[in-house]
C-alpha cells in the first residue's frame, strides 16, 4: 500500500479537530490511511459510517468553514487502522453549496485521499452515477458500495454488482446498512483497493468531448468537471454514458411494480385532488385536536381555578398577606391569566404531535407542492410559499425567511403577506371562542379560520400584485420530494417537545409581563370610579375605561365591548395574551373556563344586539387579520424597512376592520346564526 504525505497531513488535521472539540473519540493515529465516504444525501452513507466505525464519530467543522465532517477510526483487515471520514452529501463534483465545495475539493485534489468509498443508492442508480462518473474521470482509488438494494427490489429493479464493477473498472460491494451490513466484505474490498495501484480513469462520456485519449494523470477532465461546464453537449454525453450503464447493469421485472409512495403521490400532489386531500387532512387535524384536548383542558382548568388558586390564597393567608394587592396579583393576575393559557398546553401538544407526524412521514413536503402550485396558478411568486408555510407555525421566522427571495419586491410582497398566515398563537383564541360560541362545530370553525387565512394570503397577494407589484414574474421550481416513511417516535417526541417548550417560554416570559401590566391597569381607578387603588371593581378600572374608549370603533363589527377590545390591544404584544387578559378581567367574578365562556357569551350577546355568534365570527376574523405581534413587526422592519412595515400594519388593521364588519353584517342577517 502506498500512502502519500498529504493524506497523512489531512488525517492529522482531522485528529486535531476531534481533540479540539473534546469528543473523546480519537479518529485515528496520525498518518493512518485516509479513507472517505462519498455519495449523495440520504444514500445510507452515515449509516454505513456508523457500521464501519462502531458509531465512534467525532464531528468537527472543517478549518475555515462551517461544514461539519464526521470522522472515526476503521480497522481494515490486513491494513490496520484507517481514518474514515463521512463527507457531506453531494450529487456531483460541480459544487452548489459550501459543503459540496469542500467535498469536491477533497475528492479532486490529487493524492489527498487514499481511498474513496462511493456509496451508490441502487434505488436511484442513475443519480448516484453522476458523482461516480466524475470520480472515475479522476485518478483516485475507488470502491463502490451499493446500498438501498431492498428499496430498488421493491421497485422491481436489481442491480448487478459484477456488471457494474466491469463497467466502472473498480470493485463493487452490495450492502444494506440498515440490516447489519457485512462489513467484512467491505473491509476485504477496501484492503484490496488500498494495496492496488491507482486505477486508470475511464472514458465516462465527458472525456469524449474533453480528451478522448484521457491519460491517467489527466488534469483537464477534473478542471472541466469542477468548473461546472455549462456545455450541454458535455452533459448530454455523460448522461448517455450513465443511461447506458444503468441499462446494462440492471434487470427489471417484466411488470415493474410502482411503489406505494409513487402511487400515493399521484393523488396527493395531483392538481385538483391534492388540495382537497390537503384540506381534508387539515380539517381532521383540527377536529382531532379540539375533541381530544377538551377533557385534558378541563382538568387543567379545574386544577388552576381550584386547588392551585385556593392553595395560593391559603398560603398568603398563613403569612398574613391575604386580601391585599399581592393576593389580587397572584390569584386574579398570574394564576388566572397564565394558568388559563397553560390549559391550552394539551391542545398545543396534540396539534404539534400531529403536525410532527405529518412532517416526519413526508406528507408536509407534499402539502408544500400543493401550496406552491396554487400560488403559481394565481400568479404569485412560487418561492414565496416557503415563508408563507413557515408562517403557519410562527410569523417571526417566516418573515426572516423572505431573505431567500432574490428580488426586493418579492421580499416586500411576501413579508406583507406573512402576517395573514395564522400562527399557532392565534390557535388558542380560535379554540376558546369556537368552543364557547360553536360548541358542536368547534373543530370546523377553527379549520375555517385556517382556510380564511389561506384565502387572505391569496386575495391579499392578488390585490398587491394588481396594484403595487405589477409585472412581477413567477419562479418555477421542481420539488425534490423525499419518499414517505414510517414516522420515528424519537423524532416526533423531540419535535413536539421543542414546540411545546416554545409555547411555554412565551407563557413564562412575555405573557407574565403582559399579565402584570393588565393587572396594574386593572387596579388603577378609571375616571368616575367608585373606589380607590386596589379596591376598584375591574369594570371601573383604568383598563376598562381605556378599552371602552376604543370599543366604539367596533360597534359595526358587533363586539364593541371593553373586555374584547382590551384583549385585542394586549394581543398586539402576543396573541396568546388575548386569552390571559380575558381570564384576568373576568377572574374577579368568574372562576373556571366554562363560567368564563358564559360571561364572554353574555357580553357578546349584549354588544351585538342578540347576534353573539355573528360577533364571535367577526372577532375571530379580526384576530386573524389585524396587526401582528410586536416581534413580527420588528422582524418586518429588519427585512423590509420601517416604511413598508408601517404600510403593512395600516393595511392589515384596515382590512381586518373591514372584514370583521362585513362578516358581522352578513352573518347577523342569517337566521341560522341567531341564538
Amino acid at each position, binding site marked *: 500500500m502506498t500512502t502519500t504525505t498529504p493524506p497523512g497531513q489531512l488525517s492529522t488535521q482531522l485528529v486535531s479537530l476531534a481533540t479540539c472539540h473534546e469528543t473523546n473519540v480519537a479518529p485515528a493515529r496520525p498518518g493512518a490511511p485516509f479513507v472517505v465516504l462519498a455519495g449523495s444525501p440520504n444514500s445510507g452513507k452515515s449509516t454505513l459510517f456508523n457500521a464501519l466505525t462502531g458509531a465512534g464519530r467525532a464531528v468537527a467543522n472543517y478549518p475555515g468553514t462551517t461544514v461539519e465532517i464526521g470522522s472515526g477510526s476503521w480497522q481494515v483487515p490486513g491494513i490496520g487502522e484507517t481514518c474514515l471520514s463521512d463527507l457531506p452529501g453531494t450529487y456531483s463534483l460541480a459544487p452548489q453549496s459550501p459543503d459540496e465545495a469542500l467535498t469536491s475539493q477533497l475528492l479532486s485534489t490529487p493524492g489527498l485521499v487514499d481511498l474513496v468509498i462511493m456509496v451508490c443508492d441502487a434505488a*436511484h442508480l442513475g443519480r448516484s452515477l453522476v458523482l461516480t462518473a466524475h470520480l472515475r474521470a479522476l485518478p483516485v482509488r475507488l470502491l463502490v458500495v451499493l446500498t438501498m438494494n431492498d428499496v430498488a427490489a421493491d421497485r422491481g429493479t436489481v442491480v448487478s454488482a459484477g456488471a457494474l464493477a466491469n463497467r466502472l473498472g473498480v470493485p463493487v460491494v452490495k450492502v444494506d446498512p440498515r440490516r447489519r451490513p457485512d462489513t467484512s466484505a467491505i473491509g476485504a474490498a477496501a484492503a484490496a483497493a488500498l494495496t492496488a495501484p491507482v486505477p486508470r480513469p475511464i472514458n465516462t462520456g465527458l472525456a469524449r468531448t474533453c480528451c478522448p485519449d484521457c491519460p491517467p494523470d489527466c488534469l483537464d477532465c477534473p478542471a472541466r468537471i469542477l468548473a461546472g461546464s455549462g456545455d450541454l453537449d458535455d452533459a448530454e454525453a455523460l448522461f448517455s454514458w450513465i443511461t447506458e450503464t444503468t441499462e446494462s447493469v440492471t434487470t427489471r421485472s417484466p411488470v415493474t411494480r410502482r411503489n406505494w409512495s409513487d402511487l400515493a*403521490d399521484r393523488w396527493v400532489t395531483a392538481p385538483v385532488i391534492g388540495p382537497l386531500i390537503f384540506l381534508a387532512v387539515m380539517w381532521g387535524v383540527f377536529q382531532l385536536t379540539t375533541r381530544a384536548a377538551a377533557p385534558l383542558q378541563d382538568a387543567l382548568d379545574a386544577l388552576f381555578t381550584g386547588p392551585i388558586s385556593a392553595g395560593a390564597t391559603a398560603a398568603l393567608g398563613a403569612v398574613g398577606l391575604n386580601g391585599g394587592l399581592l393576593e389580587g396579583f397572584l390569584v386574579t393576575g398570574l394564576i388566572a391569566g397564565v394558568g388559563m393559557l397553560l390549559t391550552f398546553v394539551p391542545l398545543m401538544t396534540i396539534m404539534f404531535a400531529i403536525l410532527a407526524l405529518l412532517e416526519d412521514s413526508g406528507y408536509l413536503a407534499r402539502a408544500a*407542492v400543493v401550496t406552491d402550485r396554487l400560488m403559481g396558478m394565481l400568479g404569485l411568486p412560487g418561492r414565496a410559499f416557503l415563508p408563507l408555510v413557515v408562517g403557519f407555525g410562527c410569523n417571526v421566522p417566516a418573515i426572516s425567511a423572505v431573505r431567500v427571495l432574490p428580488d426586493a419586491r418579492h421580499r416586500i410582497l411576501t413579508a406583507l403577506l406573512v402576517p395573514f398566515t395564522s400562527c399557532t398563537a392565534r390557535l388558542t383564541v380560535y379554540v376558546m371562542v369556537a368552543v364557547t360560541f360553536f360548541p358542536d362545530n368547534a373543530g370546523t370553525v377553527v379549520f375555517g379560520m385556517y382556510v380564511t387565512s389561506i384565502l387572505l394570503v391569496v386575495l391579499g397577494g392578488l390585490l398587491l400584485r394588481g396594484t403595487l407589484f405589477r409585472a412581477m414574474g413567477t419562479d418555477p421550481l*421542481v*420539488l425534490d420530494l423525499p419518499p414517505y416513511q414510517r414516522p420515528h417516535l424519537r423524532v416526533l417526541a423531540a419535535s413536539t417537545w421543542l414546540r411545546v417548550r416554545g409555547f411555554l417560554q412565551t407563557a413564562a416570559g412575555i405573557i407574565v409581563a403582559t399579565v402584570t401590566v393588565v393587572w396594574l391597569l386593572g387596579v388603577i381607578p378609571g375616571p368616575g370610579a367608585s373606589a380607590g387603588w386596589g379596591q376598584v371593581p375591574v369594570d371601573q378600572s383604568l383598563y376598562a375605561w381605556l378599552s371602552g374608549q376604543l370599543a366604539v370603533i367596533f360597534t359595526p363589527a358587533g363586539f364593541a365591548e371593553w373586555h374584547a377590545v382590551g384583549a385585542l390591544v394586549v394581543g398586539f404584544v402576543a396573541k396568546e395574551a388575548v386569552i390571559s387578559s380575558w381570564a384576568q378581567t373576568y377572574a374577579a367574578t368568574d372562576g373556571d373556563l366554562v363560567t368564563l365562556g358564559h360571561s364572554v357569551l353574555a357580553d357578546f350577546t349584549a354588544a351585538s344586539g342578540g347576534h353573539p355568534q355573528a360577533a364571535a365570527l367577526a372577532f375571530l376574523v379580526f384576530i386573524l387579520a389585524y396587526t401582528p405581534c410586536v416581534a413580527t413587526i420588528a422582524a418586518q422592519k429588519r427585512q423590509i424597512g420601517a416604511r413598508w412595515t408601517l404600510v403593512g400594519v395600516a393595511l392589515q388593521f384596515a382590512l381586518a376592520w373591514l372584514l370583521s364588519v362585513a362578516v358581522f353584517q352578513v352573518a347577523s342577517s342569517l337566521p341560522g346564526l341567531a341564538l
Partner: protein
Amino acid sequence: MTRLETILDAVRAGAGGAGEVVRRTGMDLDTVETGLTMLAATGRIRRELVFATACVPSGCGSCPVAAGCAGAGLTNGKALRCWRPT
C-alpha cells in the same frame, strides 16, 4: 430536442415535482432525477433548500430560516430541496 433539454423545458414550465416531470416527459423517474442532477452540474438549474420541514442536516449556516428559528421549534431531520432554472 435532447432528453436534457426536454427535462429543462419541463422545469422551466413549472413542473411541481420530479413526478410531474416524469408525467410531462414520459421518462422514468431515475432518468429524470439523473437529468436534473446533470443539469445542475452544468449550471442550467440549481438545487437549493426551499422549505425546512425540519433543521438542515448540514447545520444552521445553510438554513434560510435560522435567524428566527427559536419561535418555530424546528427539529433535526429533513429539509426539502427543489430544482430551479437559473
